[in-house]
């Protein structure tokens, strides 16, 4: 087996931005956004590997947006969106939507129009939660989608 390197989604985006391999236009998006810490990139990575990816996505957000806020609580104390652990496909949908109420309360309290996530499960769950919480206008954005949207070619 040959050796190879690995990038997390954060490391690769940070590398591209830092060495100027991609250029971003911060003025392209003007809505107020918040960041959601996925359990696996944050709290669980910290426990399993000794490093939680908390600072990296926030640095990327600083390069993309004029204004963004943290949810409360964030980081190690954040609430799961309810879509983790495979719960999106267990069929227990009612319970999963109930689970997500804490997250939606946090987002509502932050008074934002956009929630940025670096996780496919969180992305799916947050979109599924919008209707039951009367938050259809909330835009759920992948972190790399945000970057792609403001690329300068």
């Amino acid at each position, binding site marked *: 087996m*040959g050796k190879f390197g690995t990038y997390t989604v954060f490391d690769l985006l940070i590398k591209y931005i830092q060495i100027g391999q991609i250029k971003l236009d911060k003025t392209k998006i003007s809505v107020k956004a918040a960041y959601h810490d996925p359990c696996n990139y944050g709290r669980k990575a910290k426990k399993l590997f000794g490093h939680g990816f908390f600072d990296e996505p926030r640095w990327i957000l600083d390069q993309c947006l004029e204004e963004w806020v943290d949810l409360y609580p964030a980081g190690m104390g954040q609430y799961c969106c309810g*879509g983790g652990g495979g719960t999106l496909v267990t069929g227990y949908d009612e319970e999963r939507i109930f689970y997500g109420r804490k997250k939606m309360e946090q987002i509502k309290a932050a008074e934002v129009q956009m929630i940025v996530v670096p996780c496919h499960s969180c992305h799916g769950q947050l979109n599924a939660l919008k209707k039951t919480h009367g938050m259809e206008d909330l835009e759920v954005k992948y972190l790399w989608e945000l970057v792609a949207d403001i690329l300068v070619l």
Partner: protein
Amino acid sequence: MTETDKMIEMDNLNRGCLRSWPHSQDYCVTCGACSSSCPVSGIDGFDPRKIVRMVSLGMQEEIVASRWPWICTMCAKCENVCPMEVDIPGLIRKIRSMRDRDKVPGILHKGLDMAIQTGNNLGLPQEDFIFILQDVGEEIAQEPGFEDFMVPVDKQGANILTTIHNKLVNTHTDDLKHWWKIFFAAKEDWTVPSINWEGTNWGLFTGDDEKMRIMAGRVAENMERLQAKNLLWPE
């Protein structure tokens, strides 16, 4: 069923039967911080503290049969607030692993089995996969500034090899475009493997270590087969 049948004979419990679990459940001080922190405490009458106590007492049959470990997302908020650092998410995953595979809820095990058989959770044939990638690639090439865009499938010696989440070649094909546009702007030398491209690994959720290892091994095989330098595994 009479009331007596439902009652659990505490004196007859096999308290040693789960003692081999490396999850420190016996250090629980029953403070209840875990249950207070958990967004799904109360569903079906369960909560994290109750599960920890049941494991400690050896009530294997009851916890393995209950729905609660599958409603829990293993988010680790409970563990984070636990003063004794009881590994509750690890314990939940262990409980999940003890379910008969045909009783794993929803499509979790079915999807994993499909991935083991076909290389992806959907059972999507190779030619259909390549067709979807190229179709989405052609859409990008129609956007201003992306005219030369191409999807490099099975390129040898690329700097980056990326896996694909099955939903991006199923119901969410537009979401393939974000990373691809970034690669284009960065002039990255990248590739997508045409086989075993699945980025999800549902053995993580079903507690199936063996199948999880097979899925991860296939990603490593792709790296070797295509002599790629770096792996991006966005799932």
